[in-house]
C-alpha cells in the first residue's frame, strides 16, 4: 500500500512538472468558462421563468460552468494517456518497479489538481462579474475538496474508457459523445424539475448532477441539507471509476 502511494506521488509529480513548464493548456482552457458565463449566462439570465430560487441566473450556472470545465480537463487525462502510449512514453512507466494502479492514480490525481486551477480562474471571473459567492473559507475549502474529487473521478472515467477503446480517434469521439449528455442531462444549466420525467431519471444517475449540487450548495445557496446525498453520490461514482480504470489498465501493453 505504501509503495502504491509513494509511486502515485511520483507520477503526480511528473504531471505537475509538465504543467509547470507549459501552462498554455491551462490558460486556453480558462477561456471557455469565461465565454459560458459572459455569452450563455448573459443571454439566458433574461428568461425569468426558470424556477431557480432567489439567486440570479449567473449565480445559478456558475457552479455548473465550473463543473463543466473540470469535466473537460479531466476527460483529457485519458486522451493524453493514449497519446503517451503511442509515443512510447508509457513504456518507461510500465517497465519501472511501480504498481500499475499507481500510474492510474497519479494521472487521475493530476486531473484533480488541474481542476483546482480551473476553480481558481472561475472564482476570479465570477467575482468580477458580480456573482454572489459565499465568502466563508470553510465553504471554499469544501469547494476545493469537491472539485479535486470530481477531477479524480472523471479522469479515472476517461482512463477507463481510453483503456477499453484503445485508439486515439475512438477515444476522442467517445469523449465528445459522453460530455454532451453528462453536461446537459444534469442540473448545471437548469434545475432538474423542468426536465421531462425520463430525463430526470437519467440526471439522477449522472454523477455530474451530484457535483453541481454540492458546488451550488457550497458556492451560492449555502443550503447544506442535500449536501450529504450529493457527496455520497460523488463518492460512489469516484470509487467505481477508479476501480474500473485500475482493472482495465492491467491489460495495457500486454
Amino acid at each position, binding site marked *: 500500500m505504501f509503495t502504491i502511494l509513494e*509511486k502515485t506521488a*511520483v507520477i503526480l*509529480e*511528473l504531471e505537475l*512538472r*509538465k504543467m509547470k*513548464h*507549459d501552462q498554455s493548456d491551462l490558460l486556453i482552457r480558462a477561456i471557455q468558462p469565461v465565454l459560458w458565463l459572459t455569452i450563455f449566462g448573459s443571454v439566458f439570465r433574461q428568461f425569468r421563468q426558470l424556477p431557480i430560487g432567489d439567486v440570479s441566473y449567473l449565480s445559478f450556472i456558475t457552479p455548473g460552468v465550473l463543473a463543466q470545465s473540470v469535466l473537460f480537463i479531466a476527460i483529457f487525462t485519458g486522451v493524453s494517456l493514449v497519446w503517451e502510449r503511442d*509515443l*512510447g*512514453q*508509457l*513504456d*518507461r*512507466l*510500465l*517497465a*519501472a*518497479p*511501480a*504498481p500499475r494502479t499507481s500510474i492510474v492514480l497519479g494521472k487521475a490525481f493530476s486531473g484533480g489538481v488541474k481542476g483546482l486551477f480551473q476553480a481558481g480562474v472561475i472564482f476570479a471571473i465570477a467575482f468580477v462579474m458580480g456573482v454572489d459567492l459565499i465568502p466563508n473559507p470553510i465553504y471554499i475549502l469544501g469547494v476545493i475538496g469537491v472539485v479535486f474529487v470530481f477531477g479524480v473521478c472523471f479522469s479515472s472515467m476517461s482512463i477507463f474508457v481510453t483503456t477499453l477503446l484503445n485508439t486515439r480517434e475512438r477515444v476522442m469521439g467517445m469523449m465528445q459523445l459522453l460530455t454532451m449528455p453528462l453536461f446537459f442531462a444534469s442540473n448545471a444549466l437548469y434545475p432538474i424539475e423542468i426536465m421531462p420525467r425520463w430525463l430526470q431519471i437519467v440526471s439522477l444517475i449522472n454523477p455530474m448532477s451530484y457535483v453541481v449540487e454540492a458546488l451550488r450548495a457550497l458556492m451560492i445557496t449555502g443550503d447544506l441539507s442535500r449536501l450529504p446525498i450529493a457527496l455520497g453520490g460523488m463518492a460512489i461514482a469516484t470509487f467505481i471509476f477508479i476501480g474500473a480504470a485500475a482493472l482495465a489498465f492491467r491489460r495495457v*501493453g*500486454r
Partner: protein
Amino acid sequence: MSRAVTVANLSKNYGRIKALDDISFEVDEREIFGFLGPNGAGKTTAIKIMLGLTRAAKGHVEIFGIDVQSKPDKARENIGYVSQNLSLSNEITGYENLLISAKLYGVPSSIRKSRITEIMDLLGIQNRADDLVKKYSGGMMRRLEIGAALVHRPKLLILDEPTIGLDPQIRLVVRELLRRLVNEFGITIFLTTHDMGEADELCEKIAIINNGRIGVVGTPTNLKRSVGGDTIQFDTKEPEKAVSILTGKFGVTKPIAKNNTISMIVNTAETILPLLINTLARAGVIVDAIHSHRPTLDDVFLKYAGSRLAEVEREGDYRHVKEVRRTFRRMR
C-alpha cells in the same frame, strides 16, 4: 562469472501468429549480448517478457536468479530499460526526467542528486541539464534515455534498437557509451538490433532470430567462421536450371535462389569462380553478373535463418525507421 539472464523454452502467440517459438538463451554477467534479426522477428516480444510486461504462453525467464513472472517488480529493480521509442517526457527538463526516474526506481533521496550529477557527467550533457528535452538533439535524447535507465544502478541494461533512427556519428557515440558501461561499471547489456555492423562490432555474443525462432547463438567471430567459407552470388535469367546444375557440386549443399539472384557458400571463392562459370556456360546458363565476398553476419543469417537479413527487412525496416524519426520530430 555468474549468470545475468536465463531464458528457457519461451513461447508466445498473438492470435495465430507465433511471436516466439520455444526460444532459449543465457547471458553471462558483464557481457554484451545481442539479438540480431529483422523487424517482426520477435525481439521486442522477448524484451517485454523479460521485463514482465507480457506473459509468456510457455517457458520462464530469470534475471539474476529472480523469476520474472512471479516477482516482476523485484526483477525490474535490477533492470534498466531503454525502449525503442523515445520514452522520456519532452515537456520537462533533462534533470527532471532523471529525477523522476530516480524516484520511480526508489533511489534514496540522500544520494539522488549526486547520482543524477554523475550520470549527467557520464553522458556529457551536464550543461544542458535544465533545458527542456524537446530542445535536445536526437543523439542527446537517446543518451539521456540511457541515462534515465541507469539512475538506480541496474545490473542489467536492456536496450531495444538503441541506435535506430540516429545519424552514423551519433551511433558511434552511443556504442562507445555502452562499451564504457560494461568496462567501467560492470553492467551486463542485452540489446536488439537489425544492424549487422552494430551486432558485429558491439556484441560479444549474438543470437540470430527470425520468425520467433533462434537460429544460432555464438560470438560473431565463431559464427562467421561457422558459415564455412566465402559467399558467391550471381545473377542469371534461368535460376531454377542453375540451382539444379550446382546442387551437390563444388561442396555446395543447396544454392538459394531469390528472384534471379543465386547465393551459395563455398570453401574458397577464388578457385571455384572460374569452374562455376564454365560449368554453367557448358549447360547453356548465362551468368549476367557475379561476385564473391568473405563471410559477414548477413551470411550467418542466411545460413541459420534461411534468408538474407537485408532482404527480409528492407520494406519493414524502412517504414520503421521513418516512424522512429517521426517520433523524434514529434518530441521537439
